């Protein structure tokens, strides 16, 4: 008995003695990867400094926003930053280690008078090797797209999944006096007007497969559903039934659309084909059913219904038509958006006097509030990689478009001032 106790005693004490057997590290000392982004060197043809500067600014901005990195102060950069040799054998990694950088981006730019070619490389400073390298060619005016594309690649190298920075954001703006449809870069650059309906255009949604959008417009006097090809401009009206044809959302395979129709006297959710033909009616009750959002598998829809008296979020199975309530707090829950990963649903809730954005699991558990403070934050939509959210907020007085990380941090405004900007949507990675 004593022997047994002694053994037990020793075993218990052993880990505590001398050179401790076990060490538990419960969080990283550095919770962002120190990254050095150098200004790329001109290699050939005297590229304009503006082009190089723009690439650097866009790339740094995207990577900073991603939350993965802590950008090392470029003032501290040393001679290797200006060095032309880009092969990993030619990079002096020791310099960068001294600065504490763990990742390094270097590159060079070629110019032939009209065409710009950028070679960009991401290095692992610790292991002294190239993680990813890309070459981009195009007009000088496309340099921002190149930078966004490389930012997406950097994210892929660091996390295994491409970033969403090369995508576009569609939104509605009334700066012409009428609500029209616009398209801009993820950083808010170069907004372009897509429609000229001179009526009311609302709530765009991107097709997952082709470069088109669906949206609602009062162009002919009734809220009808339209489809428009972005780069050819071709437009077609696909649902013009009596009453509402609103809140159209493509299914993940791009072959069907869920929308709200009120042709039967009450706003209900229907499934239609991309040509507009009705496949199935999905809801059937006296309340308002509206605002559908698909899950990535295409077999469930989150939507808003006020059948219980005030608007709440429900989840509906397309096949069994079973419905389940998932929002329980607040008196007004709306604009659900199912993340492309399928694990969370974002929505807006009226809390007190303003709307804020929340996320919740598809079963209704683990509700988290993402936004705080003054202003109404509404209409959240996910980036295609599920890492970020775009939404509208009127905290500045007018509605404007913001992006933030999926945990609510890092938010920044991307729409330019002038008019109200609302109903954003994040395109897929084309």
């Amino acid at each position: 008995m004593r022997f047994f106790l002694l053994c037990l005693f020793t075993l218990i004490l052993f880990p505590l003695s001398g050179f401790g057997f076990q060490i538990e590290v419960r969080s990283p000392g550095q919770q962002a990867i120190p990254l050095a982004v150098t200004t790329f060197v001109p290699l050939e043809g005297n590229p304009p400094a503006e082009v190089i500067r723009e690439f650097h600014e866009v790339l740094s901005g995207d990577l900073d926003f991603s939350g993965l990195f802590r950008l090392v102060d470029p003032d501290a950069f040393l001679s290797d930053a200006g060095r032309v040799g880009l092969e990993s054998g030619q990079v002096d990694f020791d310099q960068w280690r001294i600065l504490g950088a763990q990742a390094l981006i270097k590159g060079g730019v070629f110019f032939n008078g009209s065409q710009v070619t950028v070679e960009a490389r991401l290095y692992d400073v610790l292991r002294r090797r190239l993680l990813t390298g890309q070459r981009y060619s195009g007009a000088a005016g496309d340099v921002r797209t190149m930078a966004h594309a490389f930012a997406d690649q950097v994210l892929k190298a660091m996390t295994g999944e491409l970033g969403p920075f090369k995508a576009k954001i569609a939104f509605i703006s009334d700066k012409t006096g009428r609500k029209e449809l616009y398209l801009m870069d993820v950083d808010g650059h170069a907004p372009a007007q897509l429609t000229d309906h001179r009526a009311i255009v609302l709530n765009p949604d991107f097709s997952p497969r082709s470069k088109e959008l669906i949206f609602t417009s009062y162009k002919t006097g009734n809220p009808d559903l339209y489809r428009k090809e972005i780069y050819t401009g071709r437009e077609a009206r696909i649902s013009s039934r009596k009453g509402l044809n609103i809140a159209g959302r493509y299914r993940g395979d791009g072959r069907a659309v869920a929308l709200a129709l009120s042709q039967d006297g009450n706003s209900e959710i229907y499934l239609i084909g991309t040509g507009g033909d009705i496949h199935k009616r999905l809801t059937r009750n006296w309340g308002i059913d509206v605002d559908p959002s698909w899950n990535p598998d295409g077999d469930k829809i989150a939507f808003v219904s006020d059948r219980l008296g005030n608007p709440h979020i429900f989840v509906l199975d397309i096949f069994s038509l079973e419905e389940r309530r998932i929002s329980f707090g607040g008196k007004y829950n709306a604009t659900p958006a199912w993340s492309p990963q399928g694990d969370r649903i974002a929505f807006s809730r009226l809390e007190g006097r303003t709307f804020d954005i929340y996320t919740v699991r598809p079963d209704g558990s683990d509700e988290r509030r993402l936004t705080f403070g003054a202003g109404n934050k509404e209409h959240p939509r996910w980036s295609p990689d599920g890492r970020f959210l775009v939404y509208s907020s009127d905290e500045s007085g007018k509605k404007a478009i913001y992006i933030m990380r999926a945990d609510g941090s890092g938010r920044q405004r991307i729409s330019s001032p002038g008019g109200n900007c609302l109903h954003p949507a994040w395109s897929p990675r084309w």
Partner: protein
Amino acid sequence: MKKRSAMRLFLVLAVSVLLCVGCAKKPASTMEEGYGSGEAAAGSGELGTPSYGAIDESAIGEGGAGADKIPGMGDDISALERVYFEFDQYTLTAEARDILARNARFLQANPGIKVIIEGHCDERGSDEYNLALGERRSRAVQSYLTSLGIPPSQMSIISYGEELPLEPGSSEEAWAKNRRAEFKQAR
């Protein structure tokens, strides 16, 4: 005797338990200033009280009498009065019913005039939901008028949700004025 000490013990236990548990702080989400072009928004990170009264909003050329018309919109018709609704409601108040009774008399006297009943909402909440709610309101008005003997063929309905406020701004008064159904003469 035992009773009192038992109660005392219970109280002591309860109080000490409450003291021990304490309150956990909810982490406030941090908000950083953005790099994007345009005005940078200053946000507060804590749960704050919004200052609604201070927001200055100006409508841009939409809605209101005499503004450019949305395609398909009818003409103003002064003989028919608007009716108003409570927040998130489409039921008719007693006052609304009185107004509609008067409107019904006009419509009966002028069977040649076809009307469009527009449903509107205040700006709060989901735009899509408000489109549906606005439709509910116009439908409620239409049903009531039908029950008063107006032929359905004389009326049609449309919803504009929160898109065409009568009164810009974010005050209770403005909102109350925007939660309405109004009549336009069909062309």
